[in-house]
């Protein structure tokens, strides 16, 4: 193709890890970015997509080693060879970048306007006065309301979406011909993500830029990309036009990525047992043909044990008769509505903020939440950041003191109990946290982690008995006995989440609060953890409170749904009814904001996005 703006040939990048050896991040990838088109680089964590993008502007850390054969052709030059001033002229002026986290990419001690003006003065040689005028135009163009006031604001005075808009204004200030957007919406709420995506697509079309869009989310990419490059472990698995990738994917990995995301509206029938399992990467990829089956694993052996673990969980072959959870006597599907396990009435949480020397303001994190939870069912709690859904989960587990209201659990008001009286109830309501990297003590072995709750609640007569129990639970969540003596850092994210789930299960809880428990995981790993949760519910009749910002995942998991906004429950009802016919405008807005992939993108941006040449 002659009209390529930039083309990458055989890019190989490795990181020198000192004594730990050299780690290959990108193993010879090639792709090109045509003029005025959007190319999406898609992959899970560790696929090398961000590293590849960073290398274009030489923004890699010092220990990165780029192979001598690698080449990035750009206007007759090799970008990887440019040094000093030549590189500086490219950065910001020819090729600009938008980063993932807008809060940390903006300088907190400079006003937003000053930062945008700086790039104009460096590259466009504008005077201070000219630059300021141009800043206001740019801020208006990216849709920041009241640009004059926003230009004088500091980063923390803007919302996340406004920060990202400011970052985009900064990036397009010198009219670059290529915009690199590295996961620009991952840190943002779904409704804000929608706005930013619309903005990027509009700018790309009106300014006739090329765009390199990096993302882990295929559905999102499908809406805006002309070309898609699917990466995995530093290798391009498949590339082609968006049409080809979404309509007839050739590579099994691409097919797996498309299949293992729960899709919106795909589900018709509900009722606990009839829920379909998600296909996992291992189902679609031949494990034998690619030994490094899991992108997360640190080493070959880990990878094998992981895929083995997954297949164990998938086959559901491991059913240990010794393991039982209290709720198992009630069959999961036959939960009767007359048997509420948990009844919450008028639950509130107020945070008191100091507003001055003597004045205090109250912020209601959760306001008058009332709902009922039935045994063996799953309650989905949906909302954006700041909606109070996590606070609600923490109050249910009594990890955060409540301000008012009642939590009746099996006839007992938990809010009236003392710390001592609460102890027997603690084990019956357990919580799985969002980030498996943070929720396991890094200084404990897996064995210590699993045996600690057993000791505290005096389950099992002796330590030997507890060890045997812990090993059984480990096996039940799909990990081998090898894991017992290892430390959490030796496991991948999905494996760690399994350990966290096993820790809860050792206490045989009746209610499991899952607080964004798959949000930090890659798409393929998400599927395996969700499948595990469904299996456990079926086997033990567990009751879930499933908290998530991801409406597609919640729809896949939940029987009933609460929608929260700014601490208030704005809508609740059965999942089926709510997704089919959302009543509250906010719910409708949330549902509309979810990326729906290729077809939806063609409708939305129809005139601009032509099928690729």
């Amino acid at each position, binding site marked *: 193709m002659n009209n390529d703006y930039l083309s990458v040939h055989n890019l190989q990048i490795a990181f020198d890890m000192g*004594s730990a050896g050299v780690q290959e991040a990108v193993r010879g990838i090639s792709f090109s970015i045509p003029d005025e088109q959007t190319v999406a680089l898609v992959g899970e964590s560790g696929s090398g997509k961000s590293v590849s993008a960073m290398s274009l502007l030489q923004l890699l850390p010092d220990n990165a080693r780029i192979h001598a054969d690698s080449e990035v052709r750009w206007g007759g030059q090799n970008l990887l060879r440019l040094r000093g001033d030549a590189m500086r002229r490219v950065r910001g002026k020819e090729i600009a970048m938008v980063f993932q986290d807008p809060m940390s990419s903006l300088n907190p001690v400079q006003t937003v306007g000053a930062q945008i003006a700086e790039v104009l003065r460096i590259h466009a040689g504008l005077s201070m006065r000219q630059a300021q005028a141009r800043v206001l135009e740019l801020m208006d163009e990216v849709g920041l309301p009241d640009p004059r006031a926003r230009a004088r604001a500091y980063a923390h005075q803007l919302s996340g979406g406004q920060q990202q808009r400011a970052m985009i204004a900064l990036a397009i200030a010198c009219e670059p011909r290529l915009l690199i957007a590295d996961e620009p919406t991952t840190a943002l709420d779904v409704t804000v993500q929608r706005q930013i995506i619309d903005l990027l697509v509009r700018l790309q079309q009106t300014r006739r830029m090329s765009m390199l869009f990096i993302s882990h989310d295929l559905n999102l990419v499908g809406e805006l990309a002309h070309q898609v490059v699917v990466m995995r472990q530093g290798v391009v698995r498949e590339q082609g036009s968006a049409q080809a990738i979404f309509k007839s994917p050739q590579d099994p990995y691409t097919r797996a990525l498309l299949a293992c995301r729960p899709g919106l509206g795909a589900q018709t029938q509900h009722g606990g047992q009839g829920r379909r399992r998600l296909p996992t990467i291992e189902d679609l990829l031949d494990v034998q043909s690619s030994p490094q089956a899991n992108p997360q694993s640190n080493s070959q052996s880990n990878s094998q044990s992981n895929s083995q673990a997954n297949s164990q969980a998938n086959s559901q072959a491991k059913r240990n008769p010794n393991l039982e959870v209290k709720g198992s006597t009630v069959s999961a599907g036959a939960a009767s509505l007359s048997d509420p396990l948990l009844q919450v009435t008028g639950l509130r949480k107020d945070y008191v903020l100091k507003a001055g020397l003597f004045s205090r303001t109250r912020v209601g994190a959760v306001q008058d939440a009332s709902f009922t939870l039935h045994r063996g069912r799953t309650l989905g709690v949906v909302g954006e950041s700041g909606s109070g859904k996590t606070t609600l989960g*923490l109050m249910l*587990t009594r*990890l955060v003191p409540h301000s008012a209201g009642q939590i009746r659990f099996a006839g007992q008001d938990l809010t009236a109990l003392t710390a001592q009286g609460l*102890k027997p109830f*603690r*084990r019956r309501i*357990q*919580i799985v*946290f*969002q*980030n498996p*990297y*943070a*929720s*396991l*003590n*890094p*200084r*404990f*072995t897996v*064995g210590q982690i699993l045996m*600690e*709750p057993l000791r*505290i*609640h005096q389950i099992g007569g002796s330590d030997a008995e507890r*060890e045997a129990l812990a*090993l059984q639970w480990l096996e039940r969540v799909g990990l081998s*006995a*090898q*894991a*017992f*003596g*290892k*430390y959490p*850092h*030796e496991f991948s994210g999905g494996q760690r989440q399994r350990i*966290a789930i096993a*820790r*809860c299960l050792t*206490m045989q809880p009746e209610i499991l609060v899952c607080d964004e428990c798959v949000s930090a995981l890659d798409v393929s790993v998400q599927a395996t953890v969700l499948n595990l949760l469904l299996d456990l519910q079926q086997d033990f009749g567990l009751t879930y409170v499933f908290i998530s910002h991801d409406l597609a995942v919640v729809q896949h998991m939940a029987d009933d749904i609460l929608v929260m906004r700014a601490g208030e429950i704005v809508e609740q009802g059965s999942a089926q009814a709510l997704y089919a016919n959302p009543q509250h405008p906010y719910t409708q807005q949330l549902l509309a904001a979810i990326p729906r992939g290729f077809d939806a993108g063609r409708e939305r941006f129809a005139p601009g996005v032509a099928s690729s040449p």
Partner: protein
Amino acid sequence: MNASRSPGLWVMAWRKLREDRVGMVSMAVVAAFLGLVALAQLGLIASDWQREVATPFAPPHWVGPSTDAVDVQTQSEGAPMLEISDVDPLASHYEAWTKATAQIGEVSIEKSVTRLFGADRIGRDVLAKAIKGAQVSITVGVAAALMATLIGTLLGALAGYFGGVIDDVLEWLYNVFNSVPYVLLIFALAAVFKSGPMAKLFSNGIAPVVIILSVVGWTGIYRLVRAEYMKHRGREYVRAAEAIGVSHVARMFGHILPNVSHVVLVQLSLHAVSFIKAEVILSFLGLGVSMDMVSWGTMLSEAQTELVLGKWWQLVAATGFMACFVTAFALLTDALRDALDPKLR
């Protein structure tokens, strides 16, 4: 069950430390010093440091014997000589005494005119003093650092973990200690512990110095540990521990402490270094160890007057020993910090 065990924190830290050449050399130096301290403590070496084995101010070997040591007797000629027995009332007894003393053997001590590191004012060997001084100084430094770390960690953990009123009270305590100038506080405590009513409680050994230094020095550790605990108490793994019903004490010391232990350990060794220096200052000012002991500080204090006379070797020996040990210890601390840094999340 054939569950494999993974290397724990300390094994991994040791592996990392072994790759650090500077760290290993400084560790060898520190180990050699600690060996000296142990031997001196057991009385195997330098136990006779108080013996006057050389002529006063005997210089080091390589300088050679001093020339100004010989007394020059002057006789004034021409003066009338006086026979002393004419006026001595005891003269008649001399014969008997001479007889009596003839039966007692007499050993004349051969005092050396040079020593390896020279000798001090009364002819004590400077090398032996420096080794004995190392024992006292290092023991004081390490004991005071251990005690200060214990106080700082305990209070810091309480303040950081619980927050609220406990934190307020401990912050006030911290501010009181921090608002008094460092040296003034040492003087005040020295007055109480060494000559006040408390003096009788302690033998005049190193205990008062250890207490003074640790009571003055815990504040920095407290601040750091408090900050670490504040950071960790909100972490999900601590929340998760609460959810499974772990008690406060177990959460503070079973869960959080191993995760901040690298901070505590590095502070411990940093403070050991600074307390060794502080002991030197205290002894130099006369507030340190008692008169019949020797430390690097008392040696420096003596060297001050000797230096005026041109006798520099005691100063060189004391500062040389101290510089070697303190530098090696500080480098070891740096290497430890690198080795213990929890890259493993």
